[in-house]
């Protein structure tokens, strides 16, 4: 199995706080990889490193043989042309219509004329089930439609790598299932490498081929979906069986907590 992304010894900080601690994992080519984990464990932070928004303190992120952690901005932009990202809140530009939003990356990176761009935009919107909506503003859409529009924009330049941050967060189960179906279709039809950050178990079982589970900035598990189901790792079982985590303080920590220090 060929790897699309290799992460080696990734370590990162916000200020003094260590968020990711020595992460080493690979993301397979042409498959859907799900990054799983509880809130605040560093999933979004990891994703932001993969798309070059944050730079690691230490370690390498190798995409197509290139370590992106040390690239200049314009070299990074070359890599980014092959990536599409759907952010948690869709991140459509509110001042533009849907059509203009989808056209944005095409205008920036190609010299196509307006009518060709118009055709591409309508194709992409059709692909996510939003044909006829190109003159709508983001504020006129429901959450699910916004995410679909954000996906259409992420697909605008036919990326090889597609990233999703919590695609089903804030959606009703039916809409979320629709989005999962779209993700499956993209992998099956276009053979894209897809990375999805989520904590929704239902969608993990639908879309995942490969799973990376994070816990407090460390990799608790990585393997295929079957391996995940069969795993007897304590952290994995707790997550899958939705058992609450017992807060375990060491006596020292407990003393510090109550002393308010």
């Amino acid at each position, binding site marked *: 199995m060929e790897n699309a992304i290799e992460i080696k010894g990734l370590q990162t900080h916000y200020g003094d706080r260590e968020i990711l601690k020595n992460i080493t994992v690979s993301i397979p080519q042409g498959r859907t990889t799900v990054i799983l984990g509880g809130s605040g464990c560093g999933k979004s932070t990891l994703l932001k490193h993969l798309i070059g928004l944050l730079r690691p303190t230490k370690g390498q992120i190798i995409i197509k043989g290139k370590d992106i952690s040390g690239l200049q901005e314009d070299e990074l932009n070359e890599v980014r042309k092959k990536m599409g990202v759907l952010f948690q809140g869709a991140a459509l530009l509110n001042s533009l219509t849907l059509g203009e939003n989808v056209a944005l990356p095409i205008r920036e*990176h190609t010299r196509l004329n307006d009518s060709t761009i118009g055709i591409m935009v309508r194709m992409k919107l059709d692909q996510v089930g939003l044909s006829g909506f190109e003159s709508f503003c983001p504020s006129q859409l429901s959450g699910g439609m916004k995410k679909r529009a954000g996906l259409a924009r992420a697909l605008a330049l036919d990326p090889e790598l597609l990233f999703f941050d919590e695609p089903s967060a804030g959606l009703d189960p039916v809409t979320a299932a629709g989005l999962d179906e779209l993700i499956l279709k993209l992998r099956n039809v276009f053979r894209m490498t897809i990375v999805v950050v989520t904590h929704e178990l239902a969608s993990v079982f639908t879309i995942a081929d490969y799973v990376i589970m994070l816990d407090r900035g460390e990799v608790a598990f990585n393997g295929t979906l079957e391996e995940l189901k069969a795993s007897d790792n304590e952290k994995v079982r707790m997550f899958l069986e939705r058992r609450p985590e017992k807060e375990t303080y060491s006596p020292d920590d407990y003393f510090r907590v109550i002393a308010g220090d």
Partner: protein
Amino acid sequence: MSSIVEGFFGAVGRMALPLRRDVHDAAKIINSAFYWSFISPLKGRPIRFRASISEMVKAGYNSVPIVATISLFVGIILALQAAYQLKRVGALIYVANLVGVSLTRELGPIMTAIIVSGRSGSAFAAEIGSMKAAEEIDALTTMGINPVRYLVVPKLVALMVMVPALTVLADLIGIFGGFLLATTAVGLHPYSYFQQTVNALLIKDVFTGLLKAWAFGIVITLVGAYQGFKVEGGAEEVGRRTTASVVTSIFLVIIVDLFFTSLFYFFT
């Protein structure tokens, strides 16, 4: 003793560290704003012309009514105050000099800058800040679109053109306000007031005023953009940053004004 010294330097350090980061962040935005405005067009990546025009309309054209009204009143007030003093020495005609010179050299640019800070500087901070909070800035970056080029440069171009343009308007209307008052309430002859104004004004006065206005435009844009990009959290921080952008830009406008005015005083 050593603990007092330690405490003192510790405190200074704790204050200086975030300050150093702020300076660093500000320098980065200033640097890339100038790069994308002046250097990259020479390398064949032009500024976004249509967006710049629309920013000019928002920041410039739409503030014409408020700038006009305020400068008319300030012109009248200036003439009244001047007349109050000059009446006593029987030199009422010099109201024209005072109104003309103080408006073009000082009050025109500074009034305009304060109005534009309140209207556009705050709008810039709010726009960029809410885009930051909604990850729209991140989205632009991942699409390979530089947010400074996309958002800040059109605003910078707009204010570099519109603050001087509004200043010309403020000068003219302010002088007209003074003229109105002087020829009616004070009873000066319209033609001699006009002549006196024309004689009093030097090209230099108008030009230095416009140069200041141009610099104020840059300050207001950069402060708005800086505060916007500093937003990390949600809506309440956008509000806080918006307020901060108005306060900071008015403060910096005054500082820049002081600098330019002393420069012109000693070197022209």
